[in-house]
């Protein structure tokens, strides 16, 4: 799996979003079409080609105070429009660890 830090060339194979971690508390966020950040994947702006991805990433990286470590991540969009993470890493980022935590939150 490519580390986001190594994501130099922008080449997407399908629908994608820009994700990052919110600066003040680190939680996972997604770039929205309204040029903001949301913790809800369903509110993420979906890009479908490299130019769109490049533009969305550039805009996201520029918002350095809002979120940190922005990168493009694949998603799956169902026929009803429901958006799901496109790989295990992003699934874990969205839903949390796959193990029981020692202290239940």
């Amino acid at each position: 799996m490519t580390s986001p830090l190594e994501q130099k060339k922008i080449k997407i194979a399908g629908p994608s979003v820009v994700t990052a971690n919110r600066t003040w508390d680190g939680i996972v966020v997604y770039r929205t079409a309204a040029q903001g950040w949301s913790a809800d994947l369903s509110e993420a702006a979906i890009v479908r080609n490299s130019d769109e991805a490049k533009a969305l990433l550039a805009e996201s990286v520029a918002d350095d105070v809002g979120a940190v470590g922005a990168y493009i991540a694949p998603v799956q969009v169902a026929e009803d429009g429901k958006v799901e993470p496109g790989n295990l890493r992003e699934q874990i980022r969205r839903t949390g660890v796959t193990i029981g935590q020692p202290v239940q939150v």
Partner: protein
Amino acid sequence: MYAYDEIDRTLVNERVSEFRDQVKRRLSGELTEDEFKILRLQNGVYLQLHAYMFRVAIPYGTLASNQLRRLAHVARKYDRGYGHFTTRQNIQFNWIKLAELPDALADLAEVGIHAMQTSGNNMRNVTSDQWAGVAPGEIEDPRIWSELIRQHTTLHPEFSFLPRKFKIAITASDHDRAAIRIHDIGLRLIKNEKGETGFEVLVGGGLGRTPFIAKTIKHFVHGRDILSYIEAILRVYNQYGRRDNIYKARIKILVHELGIEKFSREVEEEWQHIRNSSLQIDDEVIEDIRSRFTYPAYEKLPHMPDELRQAAADPDFEAWRKNSVSPHKVQGYSIVTISLKPTGGPPGDATAEQMDALADLADKYSFGEIRVGHEQNLALPHVAKRDLPALWKALDKLGLATPNVNLITDIIACPGLDYCSLANARSIPIAQELTRRFANHELANLIGRLHINISGCINACGHHHVGHIGILGVEKNGEEVYQITIGGRADESAALGNLIGPGVKFDEVADVVEDIVEAYLALRERPEELFIDTVKRLGVEPFKERVYATR
């Protein structure tokens, strides 16, 4: 315990103030992430999958009970109620908020804890034997020298911007519990023929993408010269170490490419320039550090107290005692290892409640002292044998008396893809499944000493290369795949494991380990022949055949 002086306290407090200002400027936008990243890393703050991760140093693995309580406080107040003890005597908190980090650091500073030397391309937290100062037969307490190096290297400008991170470990016993041969510099405390204290110096060990076992660069360096010798090594590294390629930047690559002889000559030449400088250590300096380590006022106690004799009738107590209790240098006392590897639990995790309770037990039974080992377990270093039965009952109530130390379920595992932004595959669920699969203590004892180490990526934080059985998670075509090695070890006979064959899927890993273990039980010459010795005797082939015959 080591008592910090006013200089240490001032340094730690000033560091908190400095970082508070840096965080404030970051949150206001005055500092960009690019500018801030190196500053947060110098204070132990990483960005992981779900949140910031905060790594706190526990120098040479020694903790006082009030410090452990404070770690529990941080877990409870700023995190999610637990912490994760790492393979380098640190503790990590996984869910910390950047905005609250200065407060967390300030709370820790009140008890002399900090996060310096836990990340970044600098000299990292010097690690040592978790049994330092109490192990029978050790040359002397290696923490005295660990502390000397800590003082010299903390915020040292020459060591703050190295080509890559740099790790030192020190042992003073014949049996290496500090894994010195997989460190950038490994120091083995020895005496020369004149009875003088010094070090065998090893260099160029490390795991990760390109693993190497450290080589001896000097058979004896006098204690008074150790700082200048380390500095000479660092200078050669600083001068020649590659900064253009992160994967080739560690000193192990330099030692490998130059060859140990040439590297050694370069160090020797540099050393001759500086060995008779102010880096030469006066005896008074060592004596001052030595005097700041306080040792308990041990009582004169019998070797076999009545309490222990009576408790021996309880098979559960005996199982724990035989597994987790080790000889102490003082008669009547023991070292108790506390397994953080319960069946089905994430290796190395402890809840705030467990930390608080353990601090109380340390006060009651171990002169207020706790140790942290690189195997991700804790230890109480000064327990009177008469107190062992009571301590066991208390630990059992806390879920901290699993009698599996050094057995197959005493697994080292990195946080893996569940937490880590670098990981390719999960580690913890693999470890959990293995602890369930081998939960039967009779079976685990029948198997005997067997170390399983698991890493979720090639960076090898779970030390998979040196596991008797090593498990490396990688990603292939979007799936988690695990490569299995056998024959690695991290002790005084350190060796890298050998791959047994193609990687296997997530769901198959525990079955493969079971196959390897069954093969071992069938192949060993006698019950005392350890897994690692059977592998050494027979090589990989018979295990490979067993694992892949039906796959």
